[in-house]
């Protein structure tokens, strides 16, 4: 009886050799399925061998079954790797054909730029909001009261020479300075007040490389029961260092504004020569960046605060001026032409 067992085992070994040889020779993916059907299908050659299992002695049957299963596993595994071999060969061939010219430019959807003046404005807001200043705004069309009178500039005051005004009608002007927002803020609120007011202002100037009838300022106001000039100095020094770099120094010079007393003009280390002296700073090493001072007590009176209760500081600076310094823009008109060749440099 052992001959039946032996014959079956031989037949399985024979199939293994035969099938394996065929699998190794396959060249296309359909052949994989054909071979699978031929050897491993329900009517395949391995199943055919097992049909004779009835002739085998009961104790030998598991052995044959095991051999057959091993053969199935072996062939299946070989078919799979054959399949993978074919697939990778095909993909490799495709990849080889897919090489591209990577020097052509990327597909770029257009990217816009924030306006450089607005970028400077945003930066200023960030710096001051970092030390507790909130943002307020006032109207650009102002009353004579808020723009001049409450700021200590009556009609015949020589300081009105410093700023030629654009009138909408009698007593209504395009504001000449964001300082008008100081008045509106104080009329609306009681101290403590700690705000900045960015915005557009207007002067009756002809347009040239350094003058524009419309430009922008940022005003600051801090009022409380005991605000000092030393705090003004500290605040502006903090601002200058944040804006122009940590090595920036500032200096205060006495000046005059009708609505502050004492009044100062503030210079910072020339950003071009780092203070060594150059053409831009006229060899002084300093560049004027803003005007400031302690709020004049008559402003408190005008807005109805109790006499002597509060002190405060205020400052104002031109955004165009700082943007021109920061970006090296030499003609103020560029800011209002909206030439894409200009704007896209600030992306």
């Amino acid at each position, binding site marked *: 009886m052992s001959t039946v067992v032996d014959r079956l085992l031989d037949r399985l070994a024979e199939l293994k050799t035969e099938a394996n040889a065929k699998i190794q020779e396959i060249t296309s993916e359909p052949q994989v399925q054909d071979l699978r059907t031929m050897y491993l299908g329900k009517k395949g050659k391995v199943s055919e061998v097992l049909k004779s299992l009835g002739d085998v002695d009961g104790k030998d049957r598991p052995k044959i079954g095991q051999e057959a299963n091993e053969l199935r596993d072996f062939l299946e595994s070989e078919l799979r790797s054959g399949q993978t071999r074919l697939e990778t060969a095909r993909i490799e061939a495709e990849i080889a054909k897919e090489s591209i010219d990577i020097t052509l*430019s990327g*597909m*770029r*959807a*257009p*990217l*816009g*730029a*924030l*306006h450089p003046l*607005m970028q400077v404005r945003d930066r200023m807001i960030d710096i001051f909001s970092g*030390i*507790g200043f*909130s*943002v*307020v705004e006032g*109207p*650009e069309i*102002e*009353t004579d*009261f808020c723009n001049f009178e409450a700021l200590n500039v009556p009609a015949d005051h*020589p*300081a009105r020479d*410093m700023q030629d*005004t*654009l*009138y*909408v009608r009698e007593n*209504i002007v*395009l504001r000449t300075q964001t300082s008008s927002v100081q008045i509106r803020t104080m*009329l609306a609120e009681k101290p403590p007040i*700690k705000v900045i007011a960015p915005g557009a202002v*207007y002067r*009756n100037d002809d347009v040239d490389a350094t003058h524009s*009838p*419309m430009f922008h300022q940022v005003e600051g106001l801090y009022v409380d029961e005991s605000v*000092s*000039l*030393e*705090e003004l*100095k*500290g*605040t502006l020094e903090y601002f200058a260092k944040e804006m122009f770099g940590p090595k920036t120094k500032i200096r*205060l*010079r*006495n*000046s*005059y504004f009708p609505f502050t*007393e004492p009044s100062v*003009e503030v210079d910072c280390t020339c950003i071009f020569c780092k203070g060594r002296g150059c053409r831009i700073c006229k060899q002084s090493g300093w560049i004027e960046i803003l005007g400031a001072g302690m709020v*004049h007590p008559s402003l408190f009176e005008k807005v109805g605060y109790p006499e002597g209760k509060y*002190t405060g500081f205020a400052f104002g600076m031109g955004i165009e001026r700082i943007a021109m310094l920061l970006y090296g823009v030499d003609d103020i008109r560029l*800011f*209002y*032409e*909206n*030439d*894409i*060749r200009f*704007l896209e440099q600030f992306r």
Partner: protein
Amino acid sequence: MKISLSWLKEYVDLPQNVTADKIAEKLTYAGLEVEAIEDQGMGLDKVFVGAVLEKRQHPNADRLSLTKVSVGKALGDEEKILHIVCGAQNIAKGQKVPVATIGAVIPDGLEIKLSKIRDETSEGMLCSPTELKINHPEGEKGIYILDNSAETGTPFAEYLGKNDVVFDLSITPDRGDALSHIGVARDLAALFDCKLKIPEPRLSEMESPCEVSITSEIPKHCPAYFVRYIEGVKVGPSPSWLRKRIEAIGLRSTNNVVDISTYVMFEIGQPIHTFDANTLVEDNRIKITIRDGKEGEEFLTISHRELNLNSNDIVIAAGEKEQITAAMAGVMGSNQTEVSDATSNILIESAIFDAARVRATSRNYTMLTDAAYRFERKVDPARLAWACDRTAELIVKVAGGKVGHRVENAEAKTALEVNTHTITVSLREITRLLGKAPEPATITKLIGRLGFGVKALGEEGFVFTVPTWRNDVHVAEDIIEEIIRLWGFDKLTSKLPEAFVKNETAVTVQERQLRTIRKLLTAWGFSEALNFTFTNMEAELLGLNNWLKASKSIDDEVIQKELDKDFVRLESPLGESFNLLRRDLLPGLVRNARLNASHRMHDIRFFEIRPTFHSVGPTKKSDPRTETLTKENLRLAFLAGGATIHEDWQGEKDSIHFYDMKGWLELVLGAFGKQSGVRFVKPDKVEEIPYHMHPGQTALLMQGNRPLGYVGQVHPYVCKQNDIRVNLYGADLDLNWALSFEERKHRFKTFGKFPNVERDFSATVAESISADNLRNTIKSSVKDLLRDIKFFDVYRGERIPKGHVSYAFRVVLGSDKGTLADKEVQDVQQKIISTLQDKYQAQFAGL
């Protein structure tokens, strides 16, 4: 204002070694800003007067000579003789010449070094006028041959009289007291802690042969008027000391009498006028009346301008009948009474005129004279008589003559009796405002040097008496400014304010939302534009009016009416091109597109966030202090045209169209807080569409009846008129409205637990039925189970009946309660179909 250093030194003993730069720095810190320093002797340092002792031929060069030149003791205690090689032909033994010694950098930029010229040492250079940048009639070719009287070794700048330094000061309008040499010297005395010296005029008076009387009809506006009569002056050129002073401060010397009045004005700050007295005399008497001008009064100025005065001008009249209009007070004298070479008798005027009236006159006739400038800033009442006397003293000195008594108006004496004004300031106040205070002794010294009376009260502080010339000092803060400007701002420590933060303002919140929008727009390719607020009708119309008229599509008047509605107009415009304020942002962006198109940039994307300006009527509770009868409305506009992708080498480019624009506007809206009832409306009447937009491709954004903005194609005529080759699309949004909602809050919602079911439909309806009609009908019929409706195709063409449109859309259904059963889905599907069939006679594909 120009201030001469050598002139200043007549009034203040500055420390010996102090440099011009140091003086300028101190003045600048203290508020008298030095804008420029002009060193007249620039480049003449180390250039001296030399004497040629010997001249012989250079052994190795035909055209050169060897010289020995003495520079005296200019370079040390011993006389120094220099060997100098020279190429000029005009020198000879015995001449005096300018010698640039080693180390000099002469005005033409050449640095003088020890050198060898063809084996011969040269220890300096003999200079030509050209090399020294001096205009000299004979001086182009050879060496500058000097006066033989010149002393050997004298610095050359001194020889030329160019040894002065001139500061150009910018004086703030509050500091009228500093508009003179003595005024500046006073600040320097305080800054350098040294003594101020003011000369006292010395005069020998005589009985005036001519009786002078003064009447001020307007003592309120001319409280004091002083004169002196001088007989027998000799008008002529000024002596060189006077001419040098006048020229140093940038003026031209006229004659000795006029130059002295200028000199005194720049010495003390009091404007002085001199009349030819003979033109004022009647019967050996001079009668001066100060009065209001008469309407139309004729006046010929010294500068030969014919004016017609008015009653606001103050006039100095002479004669019994006031028939001689001698001067526009405080501004300029008349041609008729001007001092000329023929003048022999003069009248000196030193007076006070009302600042506001002088200012008005000066502005009215645009005569911004040095005198008017000082009257506007107010003069020192205590110096009127002094200035009058000082002028007389100096005129006699330079032009001879005999001086009569000083005469003034009747009110002068009482008017000038100034009430001394005192201010009490405590140390606590000083420390509170500045953060720290100097020692009391320092305060006394600094403020005392300025001429203030200072009385120290110990702990209490000080009582300061304000001097007559400081009309800008009224309150404690003014005194504190004086203290800190003299003490120095560098003494202050930088301190950051206490870190208190108030609740953020509404604007701070809005600012944050606007930044989100601005970032989105730049990411979509839009650049932020900024346009002038000013505009004009022509610019706003964008050239549309002619086209629209020609096409008769809209009446010109309609546009005009629209534009006239609520524009804010400028009363004092910047010319006709800037007489209105913008009430719409988009036209500005179209003009930007035109500019860029002219540079062949046709792919355009711009946005702008700015207020528009509108006239409004008075509100009920308006506060006159803040009411402007205008409204400012923050808006967003954006404009796009051209290709969707700019850097594209892969063939066909898509162009931006209406739905791109609408999509951007929808996304922008989504970034603001939740709004309800907002919809896009296609208006029935063309008048409801903004005049510069395409009538068939524009949607208005509405909430109820309130217009909030629009989106659409810019009118094709606009592009045609403005040479823009692409179709432009624009959008506009009311940001005041958009920002009025509570800031958008993100809140997580769990995903549905049960799967959604999608069903596609294809419905053909009449063309008048919009996608919105279908969407809304489906929404109201399905309600609870509806998750979404997406349109994915729109077809018009041969495959469907004419006048019809076919929409393909996908309906997404779902429930939170469980997976939808087939039956439920079928019911909904059937409901959608039957509703659309009933309402719109819709034909469904496949049914």
